[in-house]
């Protein structure tokens, strides 16, 4: 056992507590502080410049516009979340599938890639109205718009990940006679996880925007975007700001969920060795003591 290892346990207790507190402060405290500062700045500007409430409300008025109408807003929030989740799943599945196929069939990659780039050059707002004409006013056009936004970064990142797999590992697997499917699932897929999650995080950030654009294009009944639109036409600016905050919260929550999934799915990014409880009974594969 090395000197470092013998001294670590004594210091680990305090150092561990410190690092947890510091981590909390760094990861939670600082973002919360930045939001508080943002709200303070908002309040300060509105008060200092005597901004009329129908031009810009105070933060408290915006929050109240949400909390006091929560029973109306909650079903609309659920609707937007549903459109976001459905669209994200469809877009992610399509992106992963297309990325894998394109990586495996180079001709297809050359054939499809320009179309993919073209698809993203089309302004999504311009696309929304024709989609409504084709698919109607239901949830479908919103799901298509979200999927349209999500699939591209996922496809590109999967493609990128698969084209940068460690060739030494691949050769090693081949030497050991590993079948193709096993190489794919045990080497290529894990190697793609990091770029895949980068794509998913980009998609998650824009997914809510896609859902809102879809809702604005047309909705039968009500939606969060239309609620905001009506509030805007009625000069209820507090509700406009309140619903914007809600949309932001949905977007951030969805992003954090994907980050959480990434943390769970790619533990090797944070630890070089598996947790002790995950290790096999046979300790022979443990790190040798230095």
């Amino acid at each position, binding site marked *: 056992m090395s000197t470092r290892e013998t001294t670590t346990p004594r210091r680990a207790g305090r150092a561990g507590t410190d690092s947890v507190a510091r981590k909390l402060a760094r990861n939670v405290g600082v973002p919360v502080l930045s939001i508080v500062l943002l709200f303070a700045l908002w309040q300060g500007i509105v008060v200092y410049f005597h901004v*009329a*409430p*129908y*031009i810009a409300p105070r933060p408290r008025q915006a929050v109240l516009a949400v909390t006091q109408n929560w029973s109306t807003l909650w079903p609309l929030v659920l609707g937007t979340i549903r459109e976001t989740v459905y669209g994200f799943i469809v877009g992610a599945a399509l992106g992963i599938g297309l990325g894998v196929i394109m990586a495996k069939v180079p001709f297809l990659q050359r054939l499809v890639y320009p179309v993919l780039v073209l698809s993203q050059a089309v302004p999504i*707002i311009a696309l*929304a*109205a024709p989609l*409504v*004409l084709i698919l*109607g*006013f239901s949830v479908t056009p919103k799901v298509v718009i979200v999927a349209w936004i999500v699939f591209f970064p996922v496809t590109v990142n999967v493609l990128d990940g698969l084209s940068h797999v460690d060739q030494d590992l691949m050769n090693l697997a081949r030497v050991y006679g590993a079948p193709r499917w096993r190489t794919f699932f045990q080497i290529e897929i894990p190697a793609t996880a990091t770029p895949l999650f980068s794509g998913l995080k980009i998609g998650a950030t824009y997914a809510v925007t896609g859902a809102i654009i879809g809702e*604005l*294009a*047309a*909705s*039968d*009944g*009500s939606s969060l975007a*239309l609620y905001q*639109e*009506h509030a*805007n*036409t*009625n*000069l*209820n600016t507090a509700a406009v700001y309140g619903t914007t905050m809600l949309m932001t919260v949905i977007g951030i929550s969805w992003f954090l969920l994907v980050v959480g999934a990434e943390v769970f799915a790619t533990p090797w990014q944070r630890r070089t060795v598996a947790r002790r409880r995950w290790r096999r009974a046979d300790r022979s594969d443990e790190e040798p003591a230095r």
Partner: protein
Amino acid sequence: MKLRRITAVASAGALAVSSFVLLAGGASSAATTSITFAYDFPGPDFELTPVVVAQDLGYFKAAGLHVNVSFPPDTSSTTKLLTTNSAQIGFLTTTDMGVAVNAGAPVLSVANYSMRNNWALFAKPGTKLTPGNLTAALKGKRIFSYGDTWTESMLPFVLRYAKLKPSQVKIVTAPTGNDLTDLLAGKVDISTSTTNYEIPGFQGSGTKGTEVQLLGTKVGAPDIPVWVYAVTRSYAAGHGKTVKAFLSAVKRATVWAAANPVKAAADFSKAYPKSGYTNAYNLEGWKLTIPFLTNAQHQYFTQTTAQWTTLAKALKSIHLINAVPAPTTYFTNKFLP
């Protein structure tokens, strides 16, 4: 020596001329008041014709005005442009005025643009849509709405007339959509718009037959003016002469444009060649607007206490505003030319 004298004389002359030009220019710019007129829609269309004509024929210049036209980012922002002084005179629907005053915005209508309500329900050619069969024609049907205050205000009256609850129809709201396209594509059964915008659009679509229309006023909607010119109360108090000069120039232009629709539409098309509308659409739209510009006494612009009382009561009855204020809260006729 001679050359030096010539140079000195020439320089003095040039200085005198440039000073005169500068002074004359300064005097001219001091006499001209620059204002911004905010339209009610993000892009130009034929209802802007009087302002375009006033610019083109020099009526604004003759009134000592330089008018810039600005377009709001959405159909709800004209009031905000006025109250933040980004624009001094605005074009609003009367329902926008209603909700603005209710929200505490200090806006004041200074003239009617149109005098009557030409909002209507529309259906595909061959559809039966009459006051007598309204209930059957609307029940369970998909009705298009842009989600604007005017449609949101008028629809409840029509539904009340048809003895239908909102839950008995399917209102499709598409702020960025196009009612006519959705109607012709069969995505909605009934579209809603004003006649001057809908009919030229239908004619331009090349669809055979005549689009069926039912004026809202025949099925319960109040017969009130749709659009007005508005300013803020503080601007009206401090710049009464400018407001009056603007209305005077616009009235001259409106009268001229009503008498010369072809030339007026051509003026608009020339001023905004990239508006996205054809000259035929602009001409037809403007022609359909003309009958609504004057009241029964053939007057332009004149507002009445009755129109604002009717509007306020109507908006209150559908809970769009909290209280019915005095009509003078909304309007004044004192700047009319």
